[in-house]
């Protein structure tokens, strides 16, 4: 493996990490506020469908993005309604959302386009095209850093850069603003927040809404950036890998970036090499693909560090009567 191979793998890593990163940050907001969300997968899927469908109908990818985010937010509100307002079980509501999205997308797609549950192929302005970062061509010949900048960092769609920017933004919002402090507090000890006269319900709804917006961007990137149409069940478990990444990252934004890049890197490596020859042993492809889950289990079992979820996570808040 030479340096150029490495750069290409990193390029692929960034593409594959982006949907995970959006979904992981989405889960971060929701779970930090005390609302567990295993419906990330469903929200990605519904947003992928609506962004591809609206982009195909209008020819504008931006309208598609808007529709995707809107659909995802509606699903987030359903989750909020069930788990915050009606104090239902958050896991069950999440599972329901996953099933609803898996069935609904195909049904609507078949009704609108009659192409067997997929949307027409998108082209031109109905897709996100790649943008070159400034000076990418000029810097290409600089040794070492040149190719890294021009090949791996430059030439992605705008959503990739939005995803990377969302990390510091999330960190700032959660750890440097009053809203963030309250949001984290409501996930640890909602009683204390309530005593201070701040609405627990409103804070949790805000977190769930942000989660919807971020999932919407993940789905939109899948259908209009990475691929060029919606296909049945195209999220392919990314919402669950993002949950694994969230645990791996111990519910922290910068760690989330690291975890998503690591999981993306593992996918990129398994795409490129059918098996990895380490002289002594040969590691099969399937093992590399399973590593994200294995690593998460190791972390959860407490072998490496300790992942402590927000203390009030998973429990609906009931005011004392």
């Amino acid at each position, binding site marked *: 493996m030479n340096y150029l191979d490495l750069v290409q793998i990193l390029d692929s890593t960034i*593409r594959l990490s982006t949907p995970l990163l959006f979904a992981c940050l989405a889960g971060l907001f929701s779970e930090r506020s005390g609302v567990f969300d295993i419906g990330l997968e469903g929200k990605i899927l519904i947003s992928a469908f609506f962004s591809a469908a609206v982009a195909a109908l209008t020819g504008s990818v931006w309208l598609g993005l808007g529709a995707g985010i809107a659909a995802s937010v509606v699903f987030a509100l359903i989750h909020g309604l069930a788990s915050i307002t009606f104090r239902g079980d958050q896991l069950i509501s999440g599972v329901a959302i996953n099933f609803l999205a898996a069935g609904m997308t195909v049904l609507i797609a078949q009704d609108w386009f009659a192409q067997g549950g*997929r949307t027409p192929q998108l082209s031109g302005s109905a897709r996100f095209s790649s943008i070159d970062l400034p000076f990418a061509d000029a810097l290409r010949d600089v040794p070492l850093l040149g190719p890294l900048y021009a090949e791996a960092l430059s030439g992605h769609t705008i959503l990739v850069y939005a995803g990377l920017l969302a990390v510091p933004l999330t960190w700032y919002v959660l750890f440097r603003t009053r809203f963030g402090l309250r949001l984290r507090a409501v996930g640890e000890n909602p009683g204390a927040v309530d005593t201070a006269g701040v609405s627990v319900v409103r804070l949790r709804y805000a977190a769930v809404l942000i989660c919807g917006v971020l999932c919407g961007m993940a789905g939109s990137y899948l259908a209009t950036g*990475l691929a*060029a149409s919606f296909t049945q069940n195209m999220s392919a478990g990314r919402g669950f890998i993002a949950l694994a990444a969230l645990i791996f990252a111990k519910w922290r934004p910068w760690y989330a970036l690291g975890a998503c890049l690591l999981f993306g890197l593992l*996918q990129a490596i398994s*795409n490129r090499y*059918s098996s990895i020859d380490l002289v002594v042993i040969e590691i099969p492809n399937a093992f590399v693909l399973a590593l994200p889950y294995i690593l998460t289990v190791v972390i959860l079992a407490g072998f490496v560090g300790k992942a402590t979820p927000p203390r009030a996570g998973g429990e609906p808040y009931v005011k004392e009567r």
Partner: protein
Amino acid sequence: MTTMKTLLGAAATTALCAGAALAEPGLIIDLGGKFDKSFNESAYTGAQTWVEETDGDYMETELASEAQREQTMRRMADRGANPVVVLGFANGSTLEQVAPDYPDTNFVIVDMVVEQPNVQSVVFAEHEGSYLVGLMAAMASETGTVSFVGGMDVPLIRKFACGYAQGAKAANPDVTVIANMTGTTPSAWNDPVKGGELTKSQISQGSDVVYAAAGGTGVGVLQAAEDEGILAIGVDSNQNYLHPGTMLTSMVKRVDNAVYDAFKNAEAGELQTGIVVKDLSNDGVGVAMDEFNAELVSDEMMAAVEEAKAAIVAGELEVHDYTSDDSCPVLDF
């Protein structure tokens, strides 16, 4: 108990009568979907051709999950469809169970051999068609590297890859062939995002012609090829129209003919059971040429393809079939 028996008997008689009176053919579309622009769509096209020609009716259902295979097959036979056409190797073991229970119904299975007296097994010589597109790929490649994206990693798909690699090596002995499979579960037939990513990875390794044998995943492969400006080869259906200008050709597998023949022969009452082989000699597989790829295919390529085809049909050239001994002389998996 006796009432039950009578009831069952009555139901069976009705079913038989209905079967004899209507005898509509039935088609079960497999996972991947009716409009996968590939394997299943080809079968659907064949059925539609039959409808247009005879003005007949046929029953059709689409599988939604792996678990529905047996139920769907039985229900279709119960409703009196004859013959029942099922698509894909994954139906093999199910049909083995179902067929003996319906001795008066004929079944047709595509891509798999099921040894039952009332089953017609249609198998294609995919390795021969893949050999021809491999020839064209190596001749069209400027970098000397061509690649293959498969769907689920099963012997059938390795058969495609192996034929392709043999063709490419025949045109250019120094050619490098990169082969990747999308996955090891049926979802690998329907993951265009991963298909596109695999293609981009192959392009970064120098490939400039990619051959997709991956069902719905192939849509992503062909899209990535157009985005990155390299040539692509489609599979099963003629996919040349999908991306004119970057589609070198398609390895067509006439599943439509298999379905059409089954319907037609059954109508005339002369459906043969046993194994039916569709290969180059009876145009069961082939290379798609139309107005969308005319500019990309040189006379030289056409001549090479015709020559190889003639040699294979005459038996002078034998393309190794992966499924015959589960190994490929020119490609490691």
